[in-house]
């Protein structure tokens, strides 16, 4: 009764065994190149080195969030807890490192505590999913609300501004032209990719999206892995919350606003299926770049602010459609 293993293509007989890269995987990359080329042709400001740096920097937070959400989507679950978890971690870190609200100065330790808190909130989504058997859509929505509540409590009406040099430095200091936040994001993508490729957590997450019931038949208890994935995702969101705090120099309850949908969009645009079992961190990274290039490019070419969102939506749909067309087949299931 689980969605057919490969939810997109129902026909199970394919002529040859396949290894390596398929068109499905390259579609989003091609779309990225095309969109980039179009903007480069349209706008001189877009094709400058500094703007490319700017795009990479702008993609950093989204990339880290998307790393987390990708594993959840790979399992066929969904995660809407991002705004709450990021908000809670942003406020937490701002209150733990050197700041204007209290005398704390925990530095890296503060960052670690914020990420741990975020992981705990993620763990909560996973536990509610496996213990109460409530769909992740709801558990994560619930946890998001809880996270925002916690963040609001900690916020207590006064904006915590950070004075911690290290954390502020992450956003400002550059290595090889890219801010440290961007390098953190690159590291996250690499870590995510390794987890996906080399660890049991990653491979099982992938397998859960492919055919969860089969894992049971093979004697694998999926519950701990599900909880593990949500916990890891929470940690990524937590780090993203810290990064936003570093960028803004302040801990905001709204630090994660909108990242839920934009991360899922980026992952899906990159070729990760919502029904699970396909895609991965590298796919999602391409999706993140695509979405960020779009946002940046539309401002660069001077599209009216009224139309920005609409044009962006249109291009996302067109990009996904273009990526899907070569693989269209009869009796294909699209949810």
């Amino acid at each position, binding site marked *: 009764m689980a969605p057919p293993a490969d939810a997109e293509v129902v026909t199970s007989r394919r002529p040859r*065994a396949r*290894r390596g890269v398929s068109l499905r995987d390259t579609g989003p990359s091609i779309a990225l190149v095309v969109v980039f080329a179009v903007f480069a042709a349209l706008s001189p400001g877009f094709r400058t080195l500094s703007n490319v740096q700017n795009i990479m920097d702008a993609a950093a937070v989204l990339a880290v969030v998307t790393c987390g959400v990708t594993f959840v989507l790979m399992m066929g679950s969904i995660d809407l807890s991002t705004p709450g978890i990021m908000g809670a971690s942003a406020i937490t870190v701002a209150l733990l490192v050197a700041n204007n609200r209290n005398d704390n100065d925990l530095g890296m330790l503060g960052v670690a505590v914020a990420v741990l808190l975020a992981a705990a909130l993620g763990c909560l989504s996973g536990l509610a999913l496996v213990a109460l058997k409530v769909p992740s859509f709801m558990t994560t929505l619930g946890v998001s609300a809880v996270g925002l509540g916690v963040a609001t409590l900690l916020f207590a009406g006064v904006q915590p501004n950070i004075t911690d040099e290290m954390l502020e430095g992450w956003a400002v200091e550059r290595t090889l032209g890219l801010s440290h936040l961007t390098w953190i994001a690159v590291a996250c993508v690499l870590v995510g990719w390794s987890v996906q490729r080399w660890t049991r957590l990653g491979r099982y997450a992938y*397998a859960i999206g492919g055919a969860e019931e089969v894992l049971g038949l093979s004697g694998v208890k999926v519950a701990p892995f599900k909880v593990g994935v949500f916990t890891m995702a929470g940690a990524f969101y937590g780090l993203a919350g810290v990064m936003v705090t570093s960028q803004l120099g302040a801990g905001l309850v709204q630090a994660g606003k909108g990242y839920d949908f934009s991360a899922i969009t980026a992952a899906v645009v990159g070729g990760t299926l919502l029904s699970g079992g396909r895609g991965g961190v590298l796919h999602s990274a391409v999706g993140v770049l695509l979405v960020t290039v779009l946002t940046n490019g539309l401002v660069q070419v001077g599209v009216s602010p009224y139309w920005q969102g609409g044009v962006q939506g249109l291009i996302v749909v067109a990009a996904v459609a273009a990526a899907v067309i070569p693989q269209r087949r009869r009796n294909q299931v699209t949810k």
Partner: protein
Amino acid sequence: MNLQIEPDAPAPATAPALEVRGLVKHFPGVKALDGVDLVVHQHEVLGLAGENGAGKSTLLKALVGLVRPDAGEILVRGQQVKLRSIMDAADHGIGMVFQEQSLVPNLTVAENIVLGSEGPGVRGGLYRWDTLRGLAQEQLDKIGSHIDPLARTDTLSFADRQMVEIAKVLRIEQRSSHPPVIILDEPTSVLEPKEIDALFTQVRRLREFASVVFVSHRLDEVLDVCDRVAVLRGGRSEGEVVAQGAEPEDLHRMMIGATSSADHYHDAVCERTDAPPTPRLVVRGLTGATFQDVDLDVHAGEIVGIVGVHGSGREDVCRALFGAEATTAGEATLDGEALDLSGTRAACAAGIGYVPAERKTEGMVGPMSVADNMLLTKQSARCAGPLVRPRKQARLVDTWIERLSIRTPHRSTPIGRLSGGNQQKVVLARWLVGGDVRLLLLDHPTRGLDVGARSEVYRLMRELANSGVATVLLADSLEEAIGMSDRIVVMSDGRATAEVAAPAGGKPTPLDLVKEMV
């Protein structure tokens, strides 16, 4: 009528590998097991036979901890055990290949083979791909398979996946220090003769150091590979026979409690006068991704079998005719009218019915009721005007449940709870309720059906043919194709390469066909 043929083998020195006493299992509305006793000796291949729904799969699932029995006991090597999970069972050396395939499609073959017991393939949570591949290769070598361990499983054919399942269960040898018990629930239903041979060789090899429980509805096969066959009937142990010297008829008698003709399909009843001069279905030059330039004629009242090895493209031809696979060239007419191959709906409207091979994902909607599944195509049959009439629907569905002897507690029972054979009957009934089907495309219609159900399906096909339905049959075995078909088309590499007449009284032999196939 409790036919009991005592095994005349010497009593085994050690305790039986596995023993089941008085096992009982209730499902809502069904007593699936009603006090089953079973003994599996060491170093034997035990066959398990029984009608669809007799409780075979339920019994076997209880042996691997997937079904918790309501009463009764299970003894492993003389010790009473409680099996709570697959892992429990594996620790006792019991492993199983399931009736429905159970591989993770998006993992590699290697990962599937070691899934859940990766051993040295995963160290400290980290995958060691080379080791993993080695472990898998070892298993694949056992059954002489050349499947690439690092291929993604969903790129394999159904039969290859079945081989992977078998390779996977053989891992049990590494897991348990005891001689293993390996359970195979209908492993052969989709395999080619060659692959079946390979499997049987493996089963015989296993007997040297293990016990095997083997389920198949092909009774000749069961008698061929097993030492002893236990028969289940209505959730009870009906008795057992020693395979040596027994005939399929003996088994069948025990299964259904009556005699029946074994070569159900060979003596095809042919009431048909000469076929009408113009064929009902005319296909010319049909070309798609996996088949080229296929011509095919099927007359009203005729059953045309298509045979070919895996990858011959015959399944895709069927799907293309049903509008479920894209075509790039060619055309088809039905009763002189051009067929619209653009979609399944057009095909249904033209009077074409299709029974897919993959019942679980394509044939039925598991959580929906028997009635809903049966009437999914012919919605009008349950309606008056645009509105559904529950009484009309109930009458219709119950009629067909009875007519096809579908074993279900109720028409509103989810079809997923039925045994495989009964599910297939519901899927077939779907095309019959409207009474207006002109062409039936049957892809392995008897897969997983017991002998009784099979002969009912054969009778059904025959009757349908006699009433003028044209049928294309992708048979389960060459024998079935020969017995049922009036004419047989051979396909290989996506082309129709030969055609063999198979009229009643002038049937070709399997060898004749195999010659054409290679």
